[in-house]
């Protein structure tokens, strides 16, 4: 076993795990830049994972599965938008409601529909990027990957462009910073916030669908295992920038794959109980990173507050 191969494998797994994190995290960036915090990400991902799995299995088409994941995400986002953007309910509390709903419904649907038999989707084939895949170490781990990994690569600059270089992005930023000012200038605050929430929730649904279709090929209760909340944490770590959020997702994914890959060592030295410290490592790292970064973090000024005109 060569070092090169080990490093390459750790990288590859890290990138794979960070993909759903980054996609959901960037979605969260977009909705938070517009001032709406979506705490229901994990629930949306769960429902996206189930619906994506279901549709992909029934139609035999992976992409229809992803699309369905996006669709159900948008639907969940619509609930959040109606309750918190239009009816001005507390965003954090509404978001938690979405989480509970997604958590319960996804498994309930799954068991009702697939109660009898565990079913797998066929394994996906990684796509390899011509030339780049041949670079030693990073080639295979970064450029011989699943479709959604490439989607993530594209999403990072696209989200950056959307936020920083487009009219919609200007509106999104202004609505998150000072909705009153935006409103006074004729920007439709509720509409922009709704659009951002829907985009964010759609991405979360997609991230969930990738989890079941791309990674596990099977659905199981609570498939996300809290990844959605980590994604929200990454937004803070990433200071509301899609690029840094992506970096945070990589950090988490990599620290997890390092932790898993070093387990054998602790077993070998006769301290298997320490395995649980290793498993805690990614969470520790992300907490520490948050603490270090948060000193200068400053989110959209109106984040989490409903904008009420009168």
């Amino acid at each position, binding site marked *: 076993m060569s070092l090169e191969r080990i490093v390459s494998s750790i990288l590859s797994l890290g990138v794979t795990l960070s993909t759903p994190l980054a996609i959901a995290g960037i979605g969260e960036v977009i909705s938070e830049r517009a001032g709406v915090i979506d705490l229901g990400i994990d629930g949306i991902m769960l429902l996206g994972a189930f619906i994506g799995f279901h549709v992909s299995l029934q139609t035999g088409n992976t992409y229809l599965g992803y699309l369905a994941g996006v669709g159900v995400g948008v639907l969940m986002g619509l609930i959040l938008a109606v309750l918190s953007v239009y009816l001005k309910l507390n965003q954090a509390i509404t978001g938690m409601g979405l989480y509970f709903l997604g958590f319960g419904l996804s498994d309930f649907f799954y068991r009702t529909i697939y109660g009898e038999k565990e079913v797998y989707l066929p394994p996906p084939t990684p796509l390899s990027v011509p030339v780049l895949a041949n670079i030693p170490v990073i080639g295979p781990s970064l450029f011989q990957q699943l479709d959604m990994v490439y989607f993530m690569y594209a999403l990072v600059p696209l989200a950056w462009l959307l936020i920083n270089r*487009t009219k919609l992005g200007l509106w999104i930023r202004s609505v998150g*910073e000072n909705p009153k000012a*935006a*409103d006074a200038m004729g920007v439709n605050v509720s509409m922009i916030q709704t659009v951002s929430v829907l985009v964010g929730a759609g991405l979360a649904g997609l991230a969930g669908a990738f989890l079941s279709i791309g990674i596990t090929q099977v659905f199981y209760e609570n498939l996300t295992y809290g990844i959605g909340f980590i994604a929200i944490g990454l937004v803070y770590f990433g200071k509301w920038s899609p690029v840094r959020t992506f970096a945070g997702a990589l950090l988490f994914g990599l620290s997890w794959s390092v932790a898993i890959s070093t387990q054998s060592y602790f077993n070998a030295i006769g301290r298997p109980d320490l395995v649980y410290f290793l498993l805690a490592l990614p969470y520790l790292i992300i907490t520490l990173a948050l603490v270090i970064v948060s000193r200068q973090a400053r989110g959209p000024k109106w984040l989490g507050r409903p904008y009420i005109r009168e």
Partner: protein
Amino acid sequence: MRGIVKRFPGVVANDHVDLKICRGEVLAILGENGAGKTTLMNVLYGLYLPDEGEIHIKGRKVLHRSPRDAIENGVGMVHQHFTLVDDLTVAENIVLGAEKFKVFYDLEKLAKEIDEFMKTIGLYVDPLKKAYELSAGEKQKVEILKALYRRVEVLILDEPTSVLSPIEVRELFKTIRNLKSRGISVVFISHKLDEVMEIADRIVVMRAGKVVGELAGHEATKQLLATLMIGSRAVNIEEKFGKHVRPAGKLLEVVDLWVKGDRGEDSLKAVNLVVRKGEIVGVAGVAGSGQRELAEAIYGLRPAWRGRILLEGKDITRSPTAERIKMGVSLIPEDRLRYGVAAELPVYENIYLEKVHLEGRKSLLDRIGLRVLDKKGMVDYAKKVVEKFSVKTPSVFTNAGKLSGGNIQRLIVGRELERKPLLVIAGEPTAGLDIAATNFVRKMIVEMSEAGAGVLLISSDLQEVLELSDKVVILCNGEVMGVFRPGELSMEEVGLMMSCAKRMSKEEVERAWGT
């Protein structure tokens, strides 16, 4: 506008108001706090939907559901509180919400366009500066530019002068006249009689939601306008506040104070200051010269990274706010939207607020914060304050968020003055108050000082500072430019100091402090 009615829970803010705005005129709307001026304009601008009434523009009936509709129909508004997005550049702020620019944009190119646009208008602000870097005057220019960029024909200015220095006010008036000459109508809202009389072609006076008078600019006299505004109540608009005490020993001493602003810049540099017992020291300066930071530093809301603050000789530079409150420091905050009240809590708890620190701490429970509140005492005290400062509220159990801005201001002033402080830091204590309330607050401040308290009066109303203070300090850019007694310097010199163009020598300043 015809028969506009707008109700809020408990108030009729506009009660069948008719208003006409002619092309190319400056129309002033005058009225006490809560008269309904802002509400009426918000209705015109589409921020509020009227409960009744219609709006006609150029003979066509229109519906303004949002500012977007209003802008389309040529109505623009500059709000009492600036509505700029701090993190965006001037250029971005100007184009925000305008239909004209494309899906993708390039900041540089956009800036160039805006640059040209500003030159044609004759109002200039660096388009690549971010909004938070601007001075109050510049911000206002951007606000006006925003409206003009959308080719409005009616421009509403809601209390535009309250945050400007005298020089900036003069500039604003120049701009208004310029707009007028281009055929744009300007609606000018204010409490200040002088300003209204100077600029307006026509004056509409509102009281309690109704229009109570309308007259041409040249017909107006102060006395007439005041009577219309306030009604039958007798007022003396030029009340003088003679003082009969001599300042005694040093109460507050600020030595070489350096303080950082919100974005890490030095907003106070080597400031020295003395307030004696029984003395009112006025602080004047253009908005953003460090007044707010000075108040916050003395009150303990903002750390001093260099220098000392002494209260009655005791060093309080590092004392927490609670400690300072206990020692008798009180602050009327300038930013009453932010620091004003806890909206979901009842009036009586909002009035009690800092008095929590002033209760004795006898038992151990008291000391660990488990002291049981004396509700009856709190309510009685609140009733007293409400009455004395005429806070209009259904009861002291009403949530403070339900009060109007002016009444919240009264509540705050009452809360801060009624607890008999040694030192009052009064930040814009009369901003946004009407004449009667203004007079009352001024009287209270003078009375406090006569009773032996020291007052640090921070106000952008230069007239107010000169009239009330025993001594005046001029700040510019975080530095003390001069210290003098009212009347010692000409308005000319004061204006120069406020714009950093003139500075008194060290000796002169020291001499001024010495007396």
